[in-house]
């Protein structure tokens, strides 16, 4: 059998240093990191990396910052697994190890260019989408109106609160939020994220929608978007699976015949609408 074209070990992670850790909610913390090589990560919005903590393991984590913001890359991690738990014990100056970036990205330089963009994020779905939002806002002239819809379970679980306020103040940017369950701190809308959709005016032929959230959210959001007149190919989704190896080998992230780590995590809805296990 033929040799590999390169000697590269696809499983070998490279060292990076945590420069900032910041708790965001009870479960989620924010991490800013840079590769020890001094190089940029070289990702596009929507891609993910495999983060290693030696002795604990490796987990796929999406990049939350835009490549337009040089020097470091950012992640937000929910404390739900072995690796994420270990990450929550990290402090500035600690080492982590990185493979990637992997996967497809939001079409910020293709389909989204020149268009109105609506970002629809449920819960930690805002984490990878933030990379695209920053990218769009850093190249503001290349896009039309920007609409950001964010739904959290409760006000305590809202992420990027200050940044949401900053985005709200930008010209030609609409930010709408809702929470599933209100508390005394919240006077805004209550209910699932689809309730926000009728509140924005979409130019149906000139809008690209980016959707990311918990598995249950997609179907409902897609129905409302299509009722509003969007075509299937105007809708992009970022899907979650366990991308264990990141290189299309281990089989864990497979959705029928597609590998989320290679063919995704960002998909055009028209490409996956007939794939039974996708949504």
């Amino acid at each position, binding site marked *: 059998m033929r*040799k590999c074209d390169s*000697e590269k*070990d696809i*499983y*070998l992670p490279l060292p990076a240093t945590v420069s900032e850790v910041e708790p965001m909610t009870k479960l989620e913390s924010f991490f800013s990191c840079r590769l020890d090589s001094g190089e940029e990560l070289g990702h596009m919005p929507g891609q993910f990396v495999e983060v290693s903590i*030696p*002795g604990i393991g490796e987990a796929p984590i999406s990049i939350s910052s835009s490549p337009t913001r040089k020097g470091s890359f950012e992640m937000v991690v929910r404390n739900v697994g072995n690796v994420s738990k270990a990450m929550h014990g990290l402090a500035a100056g600690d080492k982590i190890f990185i493979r990637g970036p992997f996967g497809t990205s939001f079409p910020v330089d293709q389909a989204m260019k020149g268009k109105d963009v609506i970002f629809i994020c449920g819960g930690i779905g805002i984490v990878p989408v933030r990379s695209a939002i920053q990218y769009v806002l850093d190249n503001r002239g290349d896009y039309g109106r920007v609409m950001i819809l964010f739904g959290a379970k409760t006000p305590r679980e809202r992420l990027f609160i200050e940044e949401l306020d900053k985005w709200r103040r930008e010209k030609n940017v609409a930010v709408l939020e809702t929470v599933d369950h209100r508390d005394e701190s919240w006077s805004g809308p209550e209910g699932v994220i689809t309730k926000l959709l009728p509140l924005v005016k979409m130019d149906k032929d000139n809008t690209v929608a980016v959707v990311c959230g918990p598995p249950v959210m997609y179907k409902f959001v897609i129905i409302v978007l299509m009722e509003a007149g969007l075509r299937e190919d105007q809708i992009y989704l970022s899907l979650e699976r366990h991308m264990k190896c990141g290189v299309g080998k*281990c089989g*864990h992230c497979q959705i029928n015949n597609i590998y989320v780590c290679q063919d995704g995590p960002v998909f055009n809805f028209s490409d996956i609408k007939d794939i039974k296990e996708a949504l």
Partner: protein
Amino acid sequence: MTIKKLNKATFDKWVNACIENQRVYGVQAREDRFVFAPLAKAEDLRLDYDVTILPPKKYFQPPRETLLKFDRKEGFESAFDDEPFVLFGVHPYDMVAISQIDKLFSQDHCDIHYVSRRQKATIVVCDVQTPSKEVFAGCMGTATVNDGFDILITKIDSGYLVDIRTEKGYALADTIKSAKDADEMSLKLRQLVWSDNTKLLQKHKLNVRPDILPGVLGRSYEHPVWEEKARLCYSCGSCNLVCPTCYCFDVRDEVEWSLQKGRRFRVWDGCLLAEFAVVAGGHNFRRNRTDRYRHRYYRKGKYMPEKIGEVACVGCGRCITACTAKIANPVEVYNKLVVEGK
């Protein structure tokens, strides 16, 4: 290409010479069944075996394989275990499976751990002498094989034909290079073995050619057979474990006593196991047995053919034997789909 003809005594002498010079794994009896194991002497080699419990993939993708070593301060470095070895007695259907896995590990992101180990292996294939009771390689086009190996052995009445194909093969056959070449008659007998085996290795009869299976599956997603079979599935993953074309894996870390150093290793995993598609937080993207059972069939019969151009079932029949619930016979399922899946 050189084809030598050896009698039993010369053949055994050659096997013993091979063992002297390198690591050799060969098929041996364990009670009334057979396994690939380190070979100590020629008389232990049982080329008359029917099928081994595990396929030879265990030497290319070990059940537990160190990929990286780490030091919690220093980080990771690659670890390789690629000492050359010889695999003696691989059946044609298993050779086809090895060639398929070769493609999957080397295409796109090339897996240097797999490839470097595989490259250093010398594979001696042996035509089947005793068909196993569940084999259907004859229906899958894998009762015989013509590439991928270094040497092909065929037992004929008056001895063994040793067909040497590659440089590694010639190196291994160095001690028999002065043996006489196979005569015309022997080669005719070998042809006969091949045509007989194609018929004999059909203990289950697939009603269609394997190349139409992707199309059959393409219209069978909602077929009742998935539910009907999966209802009885224990989700034990035995079918994955014994399958020569199953290669999914999990990756884990292990630390030494010092808590400083350790290793990252991969272990075999199986898509029939309940937790295969679970993500952090506990959501299971393939929660139903039916979905897992069907996924395996689609991988073998549709998804892998899309990647490598061949159906990834070689008809070894191991899953049929291994399945406690007796639901794993691929021929039974495929034949059902062919009749009713339209």
